[in-house]
């Protein structure tokens, strides 16, 4: 106990000596600073040492920054190079075209004079992709919700794995399966649809077979795993706190999903659907095998026919002459533009909903 007042007395009176003792280290620091060639530090400064070290001119920080910048720039350079190449090849063919590129329904770029139009191809591309999404997305969301919120954990993981396997099947396999096996049942389905729902214009007369319906069904199966996996991940990330909040308010499982899970996952689901749409728009060989390769704009999805930009490129590239290749490249540019528009739209949707979303309850 005797120690304590002694120590506190020192602390109390120690103020002056401590303040005075700073004189010397400060002077020392000034000397050190001068010696290391770092002027501009006034000697009366508190806090000993030689001042702050200078920023290094070339450190790991700068090197890494440069590397990432270079990587980012490379992407832009590659895209620009591809765009320039495509445009350079496409322009001569477009000049030589004697019909309207946008409205002519046909593809004869190898003839003299060349005649070709993108209208029917772009129409078929968009129609088959939209139909595929229309069929795939509800099923995919159902599977995703089942896997994330209903299935027992082990079953959910197993099923999720199987779905992911579906994504690994090459598209040519889907195409061949669609053309050789699936076409029969789809033709029967087409006849049935035409009989009972023929009054709806899209379910028109035959002949049935390699139709937009077949193509988009195959596309739907191919898009399914992407949309399912991504949505499942998004749904799984719903904060437990929000799910419990809904349950504690007396929500059933489905009401909890509607109140907490779906609104939370909406931006992610939009992104998943857009990725699926991207795959459907760019799908080549499966559609080349299952569509009828005609060049007419028709809303009758049952009739043999239909075509898409990518499938047309695959079908016609081998036989194309110079103008023909230019025409196909021009169609590729249009596909590029469509994809760009889709992606910008998706970004806009996500951005608009980013800060605030209207109620989903």
């Amino acid at each position, binding site marked *: 106990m005797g120690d304590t007042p002694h120590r506190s007395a020192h602390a109390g009176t120690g103020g002056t000596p401590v303040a005075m003792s700073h004189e010397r280290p400060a002077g020392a620091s000034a000397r050190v600073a001068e010696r290391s060639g770092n002027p501009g530090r006034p000697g009366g400064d508190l806090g000993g040492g030689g001042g702050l070290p200078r920023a290094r001119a070339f450190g790991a920080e700068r090197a890494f920054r440069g590397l990432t910048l270079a990587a980012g720039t490379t992407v832009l350079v590659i895209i620009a190079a591809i765009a320039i190449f495509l445009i350079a090849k496409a322009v001569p063919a477009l000049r030589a075209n004697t019909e309207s590129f946008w409205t002519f329904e046909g593809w004869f770029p190898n003839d003299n004079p060349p005649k070709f139009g993108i209208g029917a191809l772009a129409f078929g591309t968009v129609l088959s992709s939209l139909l595929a999404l229309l069929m795939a997305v509800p099923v995919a969301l159902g599977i995703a919700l089942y896997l994330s919120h209903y299935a027992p954990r082990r079953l959910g993981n197993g099923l999720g794995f199987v779905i992911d396997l579906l994504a690994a099947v090459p598209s040519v396999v889907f195409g061949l399966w669609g053309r050789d096996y699936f076409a029969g049942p789809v033709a029967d389905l087409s006849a049935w649809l035409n009989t009972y729902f023929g009054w709806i214009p899209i379910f028109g007369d035959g002949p049935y077979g390699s139709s937009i319906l077949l193509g988009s069904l195959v596309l739907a199966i191919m898009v399914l795993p992407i949309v399912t996996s991504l949505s499942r991940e998004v749904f799984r990330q719903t904060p437990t706190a929000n799910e419990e909040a809904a*349950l504690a308010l007396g929500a059933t499982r489905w009401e909890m999903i509607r109140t907490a899970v779906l609104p939370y996952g909406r931006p992610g689901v939009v992104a998943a659907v857009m990725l699926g749409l991207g795959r459907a728009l760019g799908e080549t060989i499966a559609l080349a095998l299952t569509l009828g390769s005609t060049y007419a704009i028709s809303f009758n999805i049952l009739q043999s026919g239909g075509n898409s930009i990518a499938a047309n490129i695959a079908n016609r590239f081998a036989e194309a002459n110079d103008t023909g290749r230019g025409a196909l490249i021009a169609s590729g540019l249009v596909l590029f533009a469509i994809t760009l528009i889709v992606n910008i739209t998706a970004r806009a949707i996500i951005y608009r909903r980013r800060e*605030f979303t209207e109620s989903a309850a």
Partner: protein
Amino acid sequence: MAKRVEASNVTAYYGGFKAIENINLTVEPKTVTALIGPSGCGKSTFLRSINRMHEVLPGARVEGNLTIDGQDIYDRDVDVTAVRRMIGMVFQRPNPFPTMSIFENVVAGLRLNGVRRKSILEETAEKALRSANLWDEVKDRLGKPGAGLSGGQQQRLCIARTIAVEPQVVLMDEPCSALDPISTLAIEDLMFQLKDKFTIIIVTHNMQQAARVSDRTAFFSIEKTGDPGRLIEYDNTQKIFSNPSQKKTEDYITGRFG
């Protein structure tokens, strides 16, 4: 609007782990009851058993008898969503629905119950927000996201959301542990007002808080890690904090243990 909660021999498990054992406790209507005790002693587990939120976790189950005004809530014929509507819950961290506005958050429970008419929703929202002492702060921005409020406001929003469905009992699981002292004070004031209408059971780690807000206090404890939590002492708050009858309780509230 307030009911008696009676627990007899309540035992709760997480899979094979017994979290609480043989809890016997009666909570009177229109009182605030605090559950205190060291971490892992099963206070929250017991609280979550009262509105059947415990069983939400995979493998979790409850044994024993829990009644609200004599009605067994674990009865086979009882609808679990009806139980949770009758016994509301406020969680440790404020959890407003992030995609909903302030207004939609408050009426979320009503909408789940099928209330659609706008006038009823608006009336109830105002009433609930006033009861939660939040109305004046948010009345001009009901359409703004609930997640944009401060932590204390969010927690009061969650309380408003809970009482908007007019439960009989309100459970609070450490409602102030994520809040600053001023927000904490606001919520404690709120509890005083709410006990006129509701039976309130609150889990808290803050013993001053238990002493300030509660009428009765239940002290839970465990022998050692891995043992189930037990109810050590349950009495009037004043008695627990001034003259507890159990040595363990005294050790805990004087800070010698836990």
